[in-house]
């Protein structure tokens, strides 16, 4: 008799599945749900970018590229990062084109974590960091970010979490699910805490183009932090290119050479068609970014205003395309609230606990939807909370 328990990796078996699976099981069975759950743009990739991908196929560019990505693309990434965020990286030695930001996060974590190393993960956050740290043999150390700090990581919180075993800090800003942004002064305070340590920072800046009150500040641009920072970025959010699966790492050569090994042996290279499309995006896509950002911004204002009108407390997010309202006063857990909203009104939003235990009392609403759909969902949500009072 074949024994699967003996066949499986203890580490992988030990990774906990998402605690809110039940909620999504209900969601997947229901029909005609007004959903505000999806974590990806509702825009289709701009046509000139799609066309560049199609053209590359017509020209027969169907082969592997070099491991780290076609050089034109890495050069364009370097130009783009300097133009938009003032960062400087050498396209030959400091950039790897990856399969989405997700692979970039994975290879960054695996490159630096030894067994037992602690990696600080500010929560609530996107779901992948802690499992990837565990898979790499490390120990994720969550920090519970607070609403009263606008869900920013503070120097005091960070100091408290640092131990002699701390190897790295994940900095996921602008943040999914809270929409929080760290401004230059906020990042400088973090830099001050770690500057005399050997802590590596993985700055996941995938939402860097979606900031509404002021331009994004990269952690690598903070004085003295470039050397210790691995920046993760990509095309999914800025250019509405989630399905193309394309991201990249920016890091000093010491990191890049090592990360490139995992990428080379595990992945080979990012999709070729996507790389050619991305070259076009980087060269001629700044206008697309501005347009989509303007649309998200209008929806951001609208969703926050409507939430406040129906009596739901909500902090004004500065980035990404999510709001993270406080639903604690209704006396239910996040999951109960979202499940009842779904069953009673057919409106789907994501329980805050999907993004870490400290998301309890909150829910995530995505505004990557049309104003009409947002309007419809919030009207129904208003009726729902009215009945709760």
């Amino acid at each position, binding site marked *: 008799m074949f024994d699967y328990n003996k066949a499986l990796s203890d580490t992988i078996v030990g990774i906990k599945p998402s605690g809110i699976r039940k909620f999504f099981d209900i969601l997947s069975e229901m029909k005609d749900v007004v959903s505000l*759950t999806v974590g990806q743009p*509702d825009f289709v990739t701009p046509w000139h970018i799609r066309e560049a991908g199609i053209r590359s196929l017509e020209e027969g560019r169907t082969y592997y590229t070099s491991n780290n990505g076609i050089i034109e693309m890495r050069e364009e990434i370097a130009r783009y990062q300097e133009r938009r965020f003032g960062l400087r990286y050498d396209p030959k030695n400091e950039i790897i084109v990856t399969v989405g930001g997700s692979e970039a996060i994975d290879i960054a974590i695996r490159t630096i974590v030894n067994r037992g190393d602690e990696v600080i993960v500010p929560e609530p956050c996107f779901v992948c960091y802690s499992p990837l740290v565990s898979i790499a043999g490390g120990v994720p150390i969550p920090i519970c970010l607070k609403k009263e700090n606008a869900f920013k990581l503070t120097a005091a919180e960070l100091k408290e979490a640092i131990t002699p075993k701390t190897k790295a800090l994940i900095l996921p800003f602008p943040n999914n699910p809270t929409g929080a942004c760290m401004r230059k002064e906020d990042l400088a305070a973090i830099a001050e805490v770690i500057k005399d340590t050997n802590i590596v920072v993985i700055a996941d800046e995938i939402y860097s183009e979606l900031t509404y009150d002021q331009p994004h500040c990269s952690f690598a641009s903070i004085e003295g932090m470039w050397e210790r920072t691995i920046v993760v970025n990509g095309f999914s959010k800025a250019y509405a290119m989630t399905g193309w699966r394309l991201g990249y790492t920016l890091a000093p050569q010491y990191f890049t050479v090592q990360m490139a090994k995992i990428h080379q042996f595990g992945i080979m290279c990012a999709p070729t068609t996507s790389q050619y499309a991305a070259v076009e995006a980087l060269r001629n896509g700044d206008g697309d970014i501005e347009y989509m950002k303007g649309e998200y911004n209008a929806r951001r*204002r*609208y969703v926050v205003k409507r939430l406040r009108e129906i009596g739901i407390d909500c902090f004004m997010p500065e980035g990404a395309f999510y709001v993270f309202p406080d639903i604690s006063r209704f006396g239910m857990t996040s999951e109960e609230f979202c499940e009842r909203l779904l069953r009673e009104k057919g409106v789907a939003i994501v329980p805050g606990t999907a993004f870490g235990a400290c998301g309890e009392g909150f829910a995530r609403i995505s505004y990557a939807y049309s*104003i009409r759909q947002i309007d419809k969902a919030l009207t129904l949500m208003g009726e729902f909370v009215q009945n709760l009072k």
Partner: protein
Amino acid sequence: MKERILAYLENDARLTPEQLAVMLGITEEEVRAMIAECEKDGTILSYQAVINWDKTGKESVSALIELKTIPQKDRGFDSIAERIANYPEVKSVYLMSGGFDLAITVECRTMRDVAAFVAEKLATIEGVTSTATHFVMQKYKDNGVVFEPDTTDKRGNIW
């Protein structure tokens, strides 16, 4: 800001000043004032619904008609274009560059009605030297609106 208001209204004329104010981060009074100004100076001409009449029982035929004309002294194409625009069947009138002068679209109940309109009204206008009528067989998009849009959300539920 005015252009942004106009762009939103062009796409959805039912957005209220209150909604636009929130979306654009300005006051409702400012939105109202800008809209009023645009209505007054003729920037905003009308608020209309885009209707797919095929969904109703109503019979309707559209045609594009190319006209060649003799421009009039002093008034060029203006007087003839204005005269054509007076007919309620005529939905649009454009002066064109290229091989003909005016392009007009008309909407009538039947093809026979279109033919009669062209023969009896358009062709007889003084200065019209020729007409070429093209019937619309199927409308896919009109006024920026796709007629049978696929509205299913194709995004995977990755949260």
